[in-house]
């Protein structure tokens, strides 16, 4: 069973993703900002990280760098309301960039795709 870390400052959204992903059979943990996420990655092993960009304390872009400097191979999906960071080189190091939507299908597909490609 894959372990996913959801990093999102909006509580309702975070919980929604957790519920949805657990329903799909993933084990989900939550972090409410970049700092927490970096801490968690340091102490646990995850198969995938879902990262919001705008968060208090430490934003997603900074967290992205910190997480990758710790573990280069860990897959990361940027999931944000901003669409304009997609072409920004700051996010190139992420495995995928998905713009937030009330329809979670795109996110779920990306997760499946990345995890299956990794497990091969």
């Amino acid at each position, binding site marked *: 069973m894959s372990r996913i870390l959801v990093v999102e400052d*909006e509580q*309702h*959204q975070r919980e*929604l993703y957790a*519920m*949805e992903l657990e329903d799909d059979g993933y084990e989900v943990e939550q972090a409410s900002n970049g700092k927490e996420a970096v801490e968690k990655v340091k102490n646990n092993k995850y198969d995938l990280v879902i990262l919001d960009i*705008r968060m208090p304390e430490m934003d997603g872009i900074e967290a992205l760098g910190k997480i990758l400097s710790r573990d280069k191979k860990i897959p990361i999906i940027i999931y944000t*309301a*901003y*669409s*304009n960071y997609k072409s920004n080189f700051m996010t190139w190091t992420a495995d995928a960039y998905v713009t*937030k*939507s*009330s*329809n*979670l299908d795109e996110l779920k597909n990306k997760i499946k795709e990345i995890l299956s490609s990794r497990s091969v």
Partner: protein
Amino acid sequence: MINRRLLIQFLFYVPDIILGSILYFLHHEDYFSSGMINYIILILIVYLAVKVLLHIWVYKVFVINQIESVRRYIHNFKKGKFSLKENELRGQRYLSEIINELTDVGRHFENMVASQKDEIDKFKEFYNNIVLSVSSYFLVINQKNEIIFANKSFSTNFNLANEDIVNNSISDLFYFSGGKIADAIENVKKKGESIVLRQTRLLSKNRIAIIADVKISRITMQGENQIVLVMDDITSKCRKDYQISLISQISESIQKDDEIDRVLFSILTAVTSGSGLGFNRAMLFLYDLASETLDGKMAVGPDSIEEAVQIWGAVQGEKIDIVKKMEDYSPGDRKGGFFLEQVLSKHYKYTSDALFVKVLKEQRAYHIKDAWNDTRVDPDTREFVGVGEFIAVPLVAGNRSIGIIVADNKYNHAPIWQDNIELLSIFTVQAALSIESCKSLTTVRNQMEKIKLRQDAIVESEKMAAVGRIAAHIAHEIRNPLVTVGGYAQRIIQTVNKGLKNPESIKNAASVILKESERLEKILSNVMDFTRPSPYIREFNNLNEIINDTVSLLQNVFQERKITIQLFLEKEIPLVKSDFNQLKQVMLNLVQNAMDATPQDGVIKISTEIDGDKVIIRVKDTGSGIDEDHLKNLFEPFFTTKVTGVGLGLAVVRKIINDHNGEITAVNNPEGGAEFRIILPVPI
């Protein structure tokens, strides 16, 4: 004191007295008997012996000792000690007189020699001073033409260390010294007669130019002939002449000019004008690094003999101010003469062995006297120039050849004198520098143009980025609650679709949707606030309170940035009909801008005052002030000079003040810094 002489003389006679008295005694007593004769003979023998001994003794004591003294004296005399110890020759009056006389002579000689030495030393110093430090330059050259001595003035003036001079030849130190000076030196070597070269132009290899009268003469030092060059620097004397001379005027004006074509034209005008160098024609080629070709760039001179005659007629008739004419020249009116066209179409490959390329490569002037037969001239050049005698000089800037100038007297066939060549060569040094500086100026200008364009583009894109940022910000603000609402709604649908009876989860989702909808509404009303035509104002506020509130909010920031804030608030200020939060926004924006413009230890002053039925708020800072050009744009939305600015601060301020029926103006303080003044009406 007993007289030694007398005593000695007395001693001499002692034996005589004794002998006499014995004989006298014998004569009286009649002792001359035959038996006594033996005694008498014995006495005589003793007498003689004593006498001899006495003589020997006296000789030893007096003569030998005296001679010893004299010898010692002479010995000292030889060493230059002219003194006589009194007791040594005591009693020897004659001898000591002679010796005294000798001593006097010795002393006299000593004085003579001493004063001579002084004289010689003085003389030597005098000479050294002259040779080493007279303002004339002084060079001594040996038979092999190597410099063996240079005086201080020379090395100082030409900024050369002694080792740069000694063992070098004149042509190692000076440009163009091969001609006149070298000839003169050879002449002096052969004939021994001195030569003076008047007003010789000298340009040292480190580009120090002087005009000097050079006197060349031959001296013989320890059997070897040497050549002495004395150069009297008359540069400053000539400077005045030179200054009024056309060349210098032209040199100066080309140094100031930055239009490359005009510089080139000016240079060639100087080369061809009668009061300049006076060549009939001149052409200029520049080396193009990119294409590796030597390209014809400019030419000055008549196309035909008829034109030449006409021009000279005109020049002689009315004294044309050539410098003036040059200044009037604009690149547009390059007269498309045949000669110019011909030159402009000339391009020599750097790899070719054309004469002009040789001049460029070797950085050396070529004076061709008979182009038709001179093997150094390639056929193409021969045909192109079309004249027997011409001169081609390199344009050298720094150590690099940047081009060449070719000049000839095609029309009057006047011979080209060494003088002219030297002058042209000196002039080309200045010309090359002018071309270089003009070129680099042009490059700099192009570069600046490019940078400015790029900067404009950056500013433009910054602005677009700012707009984008705002849009992104709003989008983000709205998208987030929307995503949440949609997400939970989706979840409810799924729950129902799957037939799950989970009222708790549905209720949860619905309450999230509700909350997020409220949030959305709030965001929208905030956005509306910004764009709403005018707020509905019903409060009455004390402006001082608003200011105090704003300042206390920013207190930490002031401290952090070491900015002092001073308040001059009118106590009796009337209440103004206003929106507290909006006016606070105004103050915040103004103070924020003031802080941005103010360096550390700056001061921001805020004051309120009453002016009839109006109140005035001033925000003054000690910062950079506002560019005059920007004053009119300041309040436009998105106008900003800051890299990270959005340019909405003052736009919002103006909107709010307008909504309050007030006015806002910005001025620069005469003592520096900016001042923003808000006027608000007091309700009656």
